[in-house]
């Protein structure tokens, strides 16, 4: 099932749902015909998209508003914060081409700070589905929830079958392991899954945790990873500031738990624009490269503790 089919199902079940867009139709191309007047395209006007979605929500609608992640969360940031955030209206924002998914578009389109911005808004929730299956499953809970949500759109094909139901704030442990923990979300879950298998092949048991939602975040999963493994590696297509690495540090500090944190993220620069496979390769995020980076972090940790496992 595609995102579009899932959204149609949800809209057909709930007459309050309206699908809005700032002329970003790639993922919802067939909805005008399916939803009629409940499909609203305001044109290339993200501020108006967000404000109008707030107005619709004031009337009892549940808007699912689409735009490219950069323009939605950054150009219209203050509208999201002020009109939707302050009033805690149940508007659902879907940001497309976030992180590495902007591929060859260049820095104008690289949303690498969208998650830090969205999670900073009181009452806003943040969902980063690992693949199309998870996004489709999450969509119903996101739409049914009374709170505002930001969803990082990700229609990549699933690398594995999800075994537990989507519940906001509950992470999915994809592979078990107590040597290292790999905490990730969104489109890189696929590469991390590949990396975890490669690590297993060289005798490193990696616990791969798919965070699913960054807000609410599964604090217990983070604390368990910190306690059970010798190094917690966060992998994200986001700036190192304000994303998952920051969240892990915040959670560990708040709970007085020591964590050996090794963040793999974008340092303070834009990534090389290219098709996705090349971006992953250039930036060191292919499954093979991730496995090497994680193994190096694991070995460095154990050498510093004076006993080498591998």
């Amino acid at each position, binding site marked *: 099932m595609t995102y579009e089919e899932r959204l149609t199902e949800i809209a057909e079940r709930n007459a309050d749902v309206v699908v809005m867009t700032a002329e970003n139709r790639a993922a919802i191309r067939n909805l005008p015909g399916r939803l009629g*007047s*409940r499909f*609203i395209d*305001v*044109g290339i*006007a993200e*501020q*108006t998209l*967000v*404000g*109008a*979605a*707030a*107005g*619709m*929500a*004031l*009337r*009892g*609608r549940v*808007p699912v508003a689409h735009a490219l992640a950069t323009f939605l969360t950054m150009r219209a940031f*203050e*509208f999201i914060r*002020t*009109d939707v955030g*302050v*009033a805690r209206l149940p508007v659902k924002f879907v940001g497309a081409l976030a992180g590495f998914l902007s591929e060859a578009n260049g820095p104008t389109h690289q949303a690498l700070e969208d998650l830090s911005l969205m999670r900073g808004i009181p009452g806003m929730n943040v969902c980063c589905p690992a693949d199309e299956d998870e996004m489709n499953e999450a969509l119903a809970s996101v739409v049914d929830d009374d709170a505002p949500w930001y969803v990082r759109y990700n229609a990549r094909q699933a690398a594995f079958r999800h075994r537990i139901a989507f519940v906001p704030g509950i992470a999915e442990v994809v592979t078990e392991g107590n040597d290292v923990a790999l905490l990730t979300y969104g489109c890189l879950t696929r590469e991390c899954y590949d990396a975890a298998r490669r690590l297993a092949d060289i005798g490193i048991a990696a616990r791969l945790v798919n965070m699913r939602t960054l807000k609410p975040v599964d604090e217990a999963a983070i604390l368990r990873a910190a306690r059970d493994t010798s190094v917690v590696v966060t992998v994200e297509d986001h700036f190192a500031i304000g994303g998952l690495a920051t969240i892990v540090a915040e959670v560990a500090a708040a709970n007085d738990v020591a964590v050996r944190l090794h963040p793999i993220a974008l340092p303070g620069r834009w990534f090389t624009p290219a098709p996705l496979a090349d971006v992953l390769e250039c930036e060191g995020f292919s499954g093979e490269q991730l496995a090497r980076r994680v193994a190096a972090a694991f070995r460095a940790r154990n050498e510093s503790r004076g006993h080498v496992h591998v």
Partner: protein
Amino acid sequence: MTSDVRATLCSRAVRVRERIIRMAAGGGCFIGASLSCADLIVFLYASVLNVAPGTKTSKDRDYLFLSKGHDVPALYGTLAEFGFVEEKRLDHHLAPHDSIYWHPNRAVPGVEFHSGSLGHLPAVALGVALDIQMSGGSNRVFVIIGDGELNEGSVWEAALVAAARRLDNLVFIVDRNGFQANVRTEDLVPLEPIDAKFAAFGWATARIDGHDFVAMERSFAGLPIERGKPSVVVADTVRGKGLPSIEHRADRWFVALTSDEVTALIDELHGGAETVLASHARMVR
């Protein structure tokens, strides 16, 4: 308009202005911009808006949004006048235990939405108007916009979309008092011709004297100005209207008054001598 109706409107407007002056005591308020749109807000609640304390959450009500949120004392004064809030509650202006402060909060009965950041409510009102259009409702959505607020690009973005959607249930009222925070609009970023700009964006326009109830009646009775188009009423007003010591003065945008000054200004409102204000205007923007 009969002379009785006009007299009632005038006395309501005087009471609203008295409340605005009282709200400028202590911590102060944006008095100039509140006084400029007081007559418009009084007229809307008295004669235009289909909303009352008993129907303030009805889906069929007319909506009034204050996009220039700093004029909220004029709204509070009017909501007290028409029984949405208790008169005594206005004494809580700026009290930490209540929600009556320098910008609107919808915790106060009758306030449709919060504002303060300029250029937001045109889009929010557009969403409300769109939903009413989709649901086949006949209620209308009014938005009071400051003239300085027209500097914000988001106003024009929403104006384009409202025209595209043929939202003739949407009415912008521009409080054309000639000033933005600290300067005259035409000295900074000239706005005229405002009505022609909206007309070029596909809106039906009217221009009236924003202190003339007869002109308001004529203009608001004929809404929408044109079927299939959103309407804009550009209301020429005087910042600080009713108080010569405040009127037309760039430095009297925001004032914080002593209790003696409150008494003197209320006397001035009723035709007394011009007040010499000791309190200095505060630059808050």
